[in-house]
């Protein structure tokens, strides 16, 4: 690493940058990044923000496990994913910085604005630890700039812990020429419930950061922005899903806390009662599914929200919902698994269990939003499908979408989304609770309270009247009708759009949250003269139609997924023993096309560059 000496200011125009703010947990990195990201968005930049969350609430400070922070990627164009390595970092201590270095999070030439006080700390051990960290990081060409963050902050406040983040924000504001008036408004908004003095102090700290940068840093970056033509909002995927649930008319969310799904219920708990709904915190995930199912049986629009381990517990209830044809929406914010796995980190490993995670044949619908915007809209879709098809709809988001922040077009609400879920009009004479249309398997739902509709719902095999019946014909008919609904739904879907050429050497198939990173990798491949396209699936059960035909137009097809697959050539791993990525399993089975996969489960979103490299590898 080399420390740069002060010289005259150089100004470079770049199309985008990725910045990280890394601190001990509790030092306010989130607030700093939140204001910075919001300011970039308001100035018309595309933005994507990712949280760096330690596993513990208050891990010991100044260690490699205490790292808390944010990554903000922003640019002139729309930003769809967290990108590759960071170009600039503000680090409050050497250990959190080291932890990011070890994760290969910094670009080789990353500029690191580093708190300078540790180097000369009175405690010899601290100094030694600092020196060691610097030594380890010297393998890279980072540009280390020592900044008296703490010292400067103490000129304004007594406790630097509550202030360094705003000084850091000032540094960034100056380097990237951010609009101070927007920053001031953001800060005032955050502290709107506190005395005005608090806002003043925080703004003062930002100004100090700016002044320090002006006097001491001789570089700036300009990232141009485009005028904002449409109304946009910016939020996390979990906020979008929660608001989507409200916009979809959901009236009861039953849940049990589990990361990274919990914040959906926090958002809902804060507002849903204003919309005539409630959040019920159940005693466990099984009960949460049961309460949601009971409410839906009673004619409410109900939702249950969870993550992997909770999904495992809900399985028996989901089968009951499927068997009894009671609509139910389940939001699974995927995290790393199996078992407790990686609680705060992203993975796409719940696909097969979402499709097949029940004993017996239990067809259900599975959809995966591809962006934060789709987290909102998928809730409306999910409700609609669940009610039309009297079935379970599982919405698979993940930790990447859950806490990522992105702008999207402000939705226009449609009052039909709020439509009453059940038809209480008089029942036609003789209507049975499962009067399946023999073609489609669809039937009219009868809800308690409807005169003349009394029947007993059961998870046992039953006939059209919901009478328990074990005879071969009834059981086969029930299975057929429940399955048929998926085919009928598929007949209403369009083939997935192709990103890039309609035919070529390689088609990359992804699902859910990886869309942005995959398409960015495809762009790079295209720029490098390769014939690569991609297609991102939203419907996983049933699959979108036309896949086999689409696949036939490419020499090779591979999936890209954030889950585990074996690598041929590893000990014991051959064509015969190889276990594929989860979407690859499904597509191979469904299309009989020899689909390859490139998957990875690092507990992080995929990076466009890694996907690009896998493309280079596979296209050979």
């Amino acid at each position, binding site marked *: 690493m080399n420390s740069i000496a002060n010289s005259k200011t150089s100004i470079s125009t770049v199309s985008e940058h990725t910045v990280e703010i890394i601190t001990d947990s509790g030092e306010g990195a989130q607030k700093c990044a939140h204001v910075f990201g919001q300011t970039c*968005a*308001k100035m018309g930049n595309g933005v994507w923000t990712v949280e760096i969350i330690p596993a513990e609430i208050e891990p010991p400070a100044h260690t490699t496990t205490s790292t808390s922070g944010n990554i903000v990627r922003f640019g002139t164009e729309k930003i769809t994913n967290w990108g590759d390595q960071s170009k600039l970092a503000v680090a409050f201590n050497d250990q959190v910085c080291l932890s990011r270095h070890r994760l290969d999070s910094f670009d080789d030439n990353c500029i690191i604005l580093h708190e300078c006080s540790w180097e000369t700390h009175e405690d010899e051990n601290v100094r030694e630890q600092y020196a060691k960290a610097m030594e380890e990081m010297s393998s890279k060409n980072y540009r280390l700039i020592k900044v008296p963050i703490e010292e400067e902050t103490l000129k304004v406040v007594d406790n630097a812990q509550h202030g360094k983040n705003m000084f850091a924000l000032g540094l960034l504001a100056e380097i990237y020429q951010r609009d101070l008036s927007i920053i001031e408004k953001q800060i005032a908004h955050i502290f709107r419930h506190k005395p005005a003095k608090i806002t003043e102090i925080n703004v003062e700290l930002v100004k100090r950061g700016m002044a320090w940068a002006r006097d001491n840093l001789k570089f700036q970056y300009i990232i141009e922005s485009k005028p*904002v033509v449409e*109304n*946009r*909002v*910016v*939020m996390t995927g979990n906020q979008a899903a929660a*608001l989507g649930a*409200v*916009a979809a*008319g959901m*009236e*009861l969310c*039953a849940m049990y806390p589990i990361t990274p799904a919990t914040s959906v219920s926090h958002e809902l708990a804060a*507002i849903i*009662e*204003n*919309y*005539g709904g*409630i959040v*019920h915190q159940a*005693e*466990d995930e*099984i*009960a*949460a*599914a*049961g*309460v949601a*199912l*009971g*409410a*839906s*049986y*009673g*004619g*409410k629009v*109900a939702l249950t929200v969870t993550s992997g381990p909770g999904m495992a517990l809900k399985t*028996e*209830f989901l089968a*009951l919902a499927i068997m009894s044809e009671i609509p139910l929406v389940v939001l699974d914010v995927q995290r790393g698994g199996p078992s407790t796995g990686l609680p705060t980190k992203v993975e796409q490993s719940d696909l097969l269990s979402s499709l097949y995670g029940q004993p017996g044949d239990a067809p259900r619908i599975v959809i995966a939003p591809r962006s934060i915007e789709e987290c909102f809209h998928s809730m409306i879709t999910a409700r609609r499908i669940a009610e039309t098809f009297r079935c379970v709809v599982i919405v698979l988001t993940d930790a990447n979408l859950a806490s990522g922040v992105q702008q999207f077009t*402000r*939705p226009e*609400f449609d*009052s039909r989304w*709020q*439509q009453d879920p059940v038809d209480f009009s008089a029942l036609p004479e003789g209507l049975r609770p499962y009067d399946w249309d023999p073609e489609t398997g669809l039937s009219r739902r009868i809800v*308690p*309270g*409807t*005169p003349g*509709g*009394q*029947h*007993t*719902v*059961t*998870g046992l095999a039953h006939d059209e009247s919901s009478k*328990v019946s074990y005879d071969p014909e009834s059981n086969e008919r029930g299975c057929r009708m429940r399955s048929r609904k998926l085919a009928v739904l598929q007949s209403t879907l369009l083939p997935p759009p192709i990103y890039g050429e309609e035919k070529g050497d390689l088609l990359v198939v992804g699902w859910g949250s990886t869309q942005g990173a995959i398409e960015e990798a495809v762009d790079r491949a295209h720029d490098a003269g390769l014939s690569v396209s991609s297609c991102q699936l939203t419907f996983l059960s049933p699959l979108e139609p036309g896949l086999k035909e689409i696949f036939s137009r490419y020499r090779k097809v591979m999936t890209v997924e954030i889950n585990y697959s074996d690598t041929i050539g590893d000990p014991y791993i051959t064509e015969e023993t190889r276990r594929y990525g989860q979407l690859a399993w499904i597509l191979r089975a469904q299309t009989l096309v020899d689909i390859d996969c490139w998957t990875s489960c690092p507990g992080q979103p995929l990076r466009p560059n890694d996907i690009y490299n896998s493309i280079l590898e596979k296209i050979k």
Partner: protein
Amino acid sequence: MNSNVISLLNLENDNPQCLAAEDYQKDEGKWCAGCGDFGALNAVKRLLAKEQLKPEKMAFVSGIGCSSRFPHYVNAYGFHGIHGRALPIATGLKLARPELDVFVVMGDGDCTSIGAGHWIHATRYNANLTVLLLDNNIYGLTKNQTSPTSPQGTISNTSPSGSVLPPLDPLQATLGVSNASFVAQTADWVPAHLYATLQAAYEHRGFSFVRILQRCPKFTPDVFTEQVKNPDLTELLVHENGVNAPGLDKLFKASREHDPTDIDEARALAQRTDLLRLGMFFRDESFPVYDDIRTVSPVSAQEKIRKLEKEFDRYAV
């Protein structure tokens, strides 16, 4: 549950369209001859007729077990769910439709073993449900396995040399849960008491937990033989606010004035093993009822959209 309005009208006598107990029977009960579940079903049908409940305005929710077949035999909406999980379904239904009368029927394995977690929490939520534990001290449907309530020494397919643990007492357990608002015990061989207990449970606003002692003719025909033969082994808990079945004082000589608002006395009585006690152990109507406290007023679609627009303003770029 509050039946005052309907009871006052006394529809049974005045209304020509009045439903008889048999009108509440749907399919014929398919239990073994002599099963205690029939006794519970008969008492329930009598209660429904007495209250003149509209079949479409009530729901019976159950788990899995012989006893959980109950909803199939009642002319009402029914939900025959999964093993141990009737209470969450019933809680959800009640939250959705507080105006419906919701009854829950569970077996002893269903409630006190696989469903034990839900049982504790449902007691605590105190939703307005009438809850029947059909306790035959055995797993019936799966053919003779030891249940948590089986007396120590019970010979069953899973404890051929006699069960090793003393039984779990559902009354003590329920009375130990904060917020328990109604706990009573009755028995299939005392139909008048069974009926009167269900009546009291139905009238209680809140989670009314009734343990119905009964015999399984196949696997536990003799669990209560001594008590059935000798009424002196049973003590009735009586009180003007308790369970009052006319004429029982002649049959049972032992009776005790027990004020059902006295939780300490209720717990002490539940703990004693000297006599079998039937009656109301505890009732307190002052606890908040979950479906009351979670009721929010409905909001029109237009109003929701207006609010959503405001919500989105917070996120506007």
